[in-house]
């Protein structure tokens, strides 16, 4: 295992090590100490490596991640795992705004709460939040799954496309085009698998399914109807 001390190593050296040396030397485990809220820790990693960040991170930790399994042993700042493609990012504490924004794949697990716009514009990522999520979560979410074990704020799932939200607690309000739908057996199976992946013991039956009513899918630009 390699240990990198961000109090002594410049961020640029850390990321270049993760981009090049880890792949070249087939390093399997890296521990980052003293992150001290630095931004862009472990961004653009593309290797099957386990990375443990011992402390809090700033913006964009694990941004654009591919393959890596990154654990933040603390809280994560805005945009954690933004645009993630694959792999796993696990935040042991709370996550700030835009967690998993625009993520294409992989799994983001947040043990605590996630702030505003969690899963905004998500494109296939699975996000499991142990606590609550803030307003506008899953805004314009295109694909993937957002699991919320606590409550959700206002405008949940505003302008949803194909992504699905499973909510265990209460919601302040749904966003445009989001609606509650009956849970199917397939939903329960998918949810059970996600909860298991996140190490959570809740039962799928405790959750509601929220998906798009699809009334905003097509805007009729050339309508010539009388009114």
């Amino acid at each position, binding site marked *: 295992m390699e240990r990198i001390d961000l109090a002594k190593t410049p961020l640029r050296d850390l990321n270049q090590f993760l981009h090049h040396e880890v792949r070249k030397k087939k390093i399997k485990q890296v521990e980052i100490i003293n992150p001290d809220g630095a931004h862009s820790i472990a961004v*653009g990693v593309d290797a099957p490596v386990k990375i443990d960040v011992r402390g809090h991170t700033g913006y964009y930790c694990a941004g654009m991640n591919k393959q890596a399994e990154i654990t933040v042993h603390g809280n994560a700042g805005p*945009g954690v795992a933004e*645009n993630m493609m694959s792999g796993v990012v696990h935040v042991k504490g709370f996550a700030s705004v835009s967690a998993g924004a625009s993520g*294409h794949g992989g799994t983001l697990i947040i043990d605590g709460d996630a702030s505003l716009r969690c899963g905004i514009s998500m494109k296939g990522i699975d996000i499991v939040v142990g606590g609550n999520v803030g307003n506008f979560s899953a805004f314009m979410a*295109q694909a993937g799954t957002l699991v919320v074990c606590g409550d959700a704020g206002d405008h949940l799932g505003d*302008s949803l496309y194909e992504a699905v939200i499973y909510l265990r607690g209460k919601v302040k309000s749904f966003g445009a085009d989001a609606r509650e739908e009956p849970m199917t057996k397939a939903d329960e199976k998918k949810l059970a698998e996600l909860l298991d992946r996140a190490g959570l013991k809740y039962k799928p039956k405790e959750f509601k399914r929220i998906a798009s009513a699809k009334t905003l899918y097509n805007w009729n*630009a050339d309508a*010539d109807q*009388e*009114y």
Partner: protein
Amino acid sequence: MSHRRIQKEDHYTFDRSTIDYIQRAAATGLYEIRGLGAKRKVAHFDDLVFLAGSITRYPLEGYREKCATKTVLGTRYAKKPIELDIPITIAGMSFGSLSANVKEALGRAATECGTSTTTGDGGMTPEERQSSKTLVYQCLPSRYGFNPDDVRKANAIEVVIGQGAKPGGGGMLLGQKVNKRVAGMRTLPEGVDQRSACRHPDWTGPDDLTIKIKELREITDWEVPIYAKVGATRTFHDVKLCVHAGADVVVVDGMQGGTAATQTVFIEHIGIPTLAAVRLAVDALEDMNMKGKVQLIVSGGIRTGADAAKALAMGADAVSVGQGILFALGCNNETYLQRGEHHSAVADYETLGTAPGYCHHCHTGLCPVGITTQDEVLEQRLTPETGAKHVKNYLKTMNMELTTIARACGKSDVHHLEREDLVALTVEAAAMARVPLAGTRWIPGHSG
């Protein structure tokens, strides 16, 4: 025989196009969405002219003497700045709004002319990457198709904050243009309207942008330039904030800039003309002592070598062309060329309710000449070879015009053109560009 007089008094407030707009709104209850850029007349580069060499300035021989056009972009932080043979680049236009054939044509033409092309919303296609020696990869609010593999393949990354046709607005690719391939790249179902958000999903404000730009630099190992593109509104402050945020290159797109599909009210009523924006952008760079350190690209209604020359004289390092490229490809032509023969497209324009020369129906996906379409039949109306040839010819012509003007002004490098070489033909242009009204020393608001 008595003659009945028909009164035809023009109404300037409710003219024919306004009446047509009101009646369309009354019939449909929807605002109009269309392609291309602002059609209204605004002060533009046509309102400036050059003061070429005579006795006070010494011109260069137009056809003989060398006039350099080499352009380097991204010298501030990037390990590998962009080096172009000409200062005329191809603006971002998406695969989705344009066919794959067209994207490939743009790449080929740009490569042959030694310039760059730009991806647009919807991601990078393999054809585009393969055909483009220098490709700028846009990071847009939608993040459609945006992925780290393509980030690492890019020669530069452009963080798009706004677009001249619709600053403050997102985009819309209507479902009729969303075929299987486009839908797959954008992770959405076929045939569904794809809204491009007006704000980025993971940052808000200039301080966040600083961190976002740094993240992109970290992902790319600080190798490629990072551009920031803004639609022209509060340009002086926006350019300053882009520089503050660490951009290597700032792209300023004026209100005449084009779009594939936007509300007409947006296109015509939001943003400021390119002429006004370029001056404000240069003011910002000069105010920060960053002229020459951060490069400026200007776009929005650049059509000719003269426009490029005037933008450079005003202080731009390069220009970017979008709609001009579409017209070079045959947009609004009466005919299209297929298997060596010209075929009339007039009936297809009529189906859209328009005619050659007036079409702005890019949003429908039914482009009669095969440019802004994903339709399997229509897209065959423009091959990459034909498209590349026309775009190459157009860029070459523009560059020859640019060097012709530069030589006439006595410059052996197009980047030596300067504001002192220009005067304005109208009071408005003089005020916006802050150059004297022709025949006077008067710069409105600044002298006299």
